[in-house]
């Protein structure tokens, strides 16, 4: 009797949660694989090239060929490296980009952990992303990775400040930290319209937070060879890439939830409103296209320009916007009621 009690109390819920985790992670990993293909195709088309087109129909199996290649290569650990931290760094990057998906609502009620402080959880996880890079940079015991790690530390801390203020602006309009509540609050109008400047600031900060071009200074092939990744090879390098692409999807999902109405349909009647996850994924794909578009068109920022943009442009702008939003909400009595 006691054993069945334990099973129904802990075992069964645990099994269900593990299944749900797999149901989220397997599609995420698959979409990460195809995102690398998508990204390369966009980049190629913008440069009037063909992109990957050899492996499989339209080159669709290219990501799997890449994965197979990485798995069969040798993992090289430099003699002077701090071995434990060196191996821990890619794992940290990869794990952090996966755990954040626990709170993302794919449709109304389709969420693994519907916690009260969902936005803060995402913000906390994304602010930890810097550790993977710092650890990699330091433990490689080499100059280029170290410089890349230091740059990344400064960059991510700077842009997090303005991301924080943008999130506060949205929260003022919602009155809740729960991600599903944030989406429901946009039923009348998506926040991208009244808060358009913040939408732009958030998207650019998301580029900086995920180390994508034009803010890929931690890697900066032209000057730092590949920054923090120099000493990594095979799957330990592959985990960094997976983490980076998963973070891109995550930041696109967060932008969608905060500004583009999450799973809400742009066409507000019956057959279209049923397709919650479809709209959510479509919006993410559009944002991911913009990620690739920016990468193909904008040259890399210089380091001091990056810092100037973060601290002297985005920070004052988002601070003023927080005050402005609060002022407007109080003046017109539009403050969301506490529940």
């Amino acid at each position, binding site marked *: 009797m006691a054993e069945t009690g334990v099973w129904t109390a*802990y075992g069964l819920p645990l099994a269900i949660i593990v299944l749900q985790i797999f149901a989220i992670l397997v599609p995420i990993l698959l979409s990460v694989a195809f995102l690398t293909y998508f990204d390369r195709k966009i980049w190629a088309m913008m440069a009037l090239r063909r992109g990957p087109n050899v492996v499989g129909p339209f080159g669709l199996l290219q990501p799997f060929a890449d994965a197979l290649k990485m798995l069969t290569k040798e993992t090289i650990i430099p003699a002077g490296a*701090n071995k434990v*931290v060196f191996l821990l760094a890619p794992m940290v990057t990869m794990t952090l980009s996966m755990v954040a998906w626990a709170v993302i609502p794919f449709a109304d009620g389709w969420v693994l952990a519907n*916690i*009260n*402080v969902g936005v*803060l*959880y995402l*913000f*906390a996880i994304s*602010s*930890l992303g*810097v*550790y993977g890079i*710092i*650890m990699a940079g*330091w433990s490689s015991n080499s100059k280029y990775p*170290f410089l890349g*790690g*230091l740059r990344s*530390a*400064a960059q*991510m*801390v700077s842009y*997090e400040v303005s991301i924080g203020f943008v999130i506060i602006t949205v929260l003022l309009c919602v009155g809740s*930290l729960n991600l599903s509540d944030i989406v429901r609050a946009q039923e009348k109008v998506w926040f991208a319209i009244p808060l358009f400047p913040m939408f732009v600031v958030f998207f650019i900060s998301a580029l900086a937070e995920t180390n994508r071009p034009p803010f890929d200074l931690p890697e900066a092939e032209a000057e730092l060879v590949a920054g923090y990744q120099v000493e990594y090879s095979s799957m330990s390098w592959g985990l960094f890439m997976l983490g980076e692409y998963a973070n891109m999807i995550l930041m696109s999902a967060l932008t969608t939830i905060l500004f583009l109405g999450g799973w809400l349909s742009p066409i507000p009647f019956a057959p279209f409103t049923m397709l919650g996850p479809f709209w959510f994924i479509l919006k993410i794909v559009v944002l991911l296209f913009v990620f690739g578009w920016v990468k193909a068109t904008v040259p890399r920022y210089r380091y*001091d*320009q990056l810092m*100037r943009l973060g601290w002297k442009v985005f920070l004052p702008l988002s601070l003023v916007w927080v005050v402005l939003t609060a002022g407007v909400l109080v003046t017109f009595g539009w403050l969301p009621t*506490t*529940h």
Partner: protein
Amino acid sequence: MDLIAFIFYIFAAITVASGVMVIAARNPVHSVFFLILAFFNSAGLFVLLGAEFVAMILVIVYVGAVAVLFLFVVMMLDINFTELRQGFLQYLPVGALIGLVLFTELVLVVGSWTILPGASTAITAPASAAGTVAISNTHALGQLIYTHYAYPFQVAGLILLVAMIGAIVLTLRQRTGVRRQSIAAQIARTRATAIEVRQVKPGQGI
């Protein structure tokens, strides 16, 4: 033993163990990593208490910002720590004495600590003021800080601001001859001010 207690003991044990490792680790960078682990597990303890807002803020502020700057500084230090440990046994008695004094003081303070009868009701006041509806701990914290204790909170913020400005003023140094980029001047450049067309005769140069 139920699950919550079990999880509590895991978090608490890891917190204490990583706290010990912060001072015991040979490599200062490892110390910072153990400190981060300790922060994480404290955040876990807060979650177990039902204080999810404080837990997330702990991770964002301490792990996401403070520890990054710690790591930034510690990684740049070039100290020979084996040399530093040479006099360890020599200073042990003094260190132990200071530790003992601090420990005694802490025991005395905690032992004589009495919670005012009004204080415990003040803490629960906002929750009960909201009526029977169970409010989330973020709301409770917000009401406590911004409604019931707004002025002390503002004063605390002002003190932090003064400290911040003080730190900037103390470390500010004026350097002469620094060439800064002037974005406005760059944008204001026009074709007329930027280029000059000259007729160069062959074999003469400018």
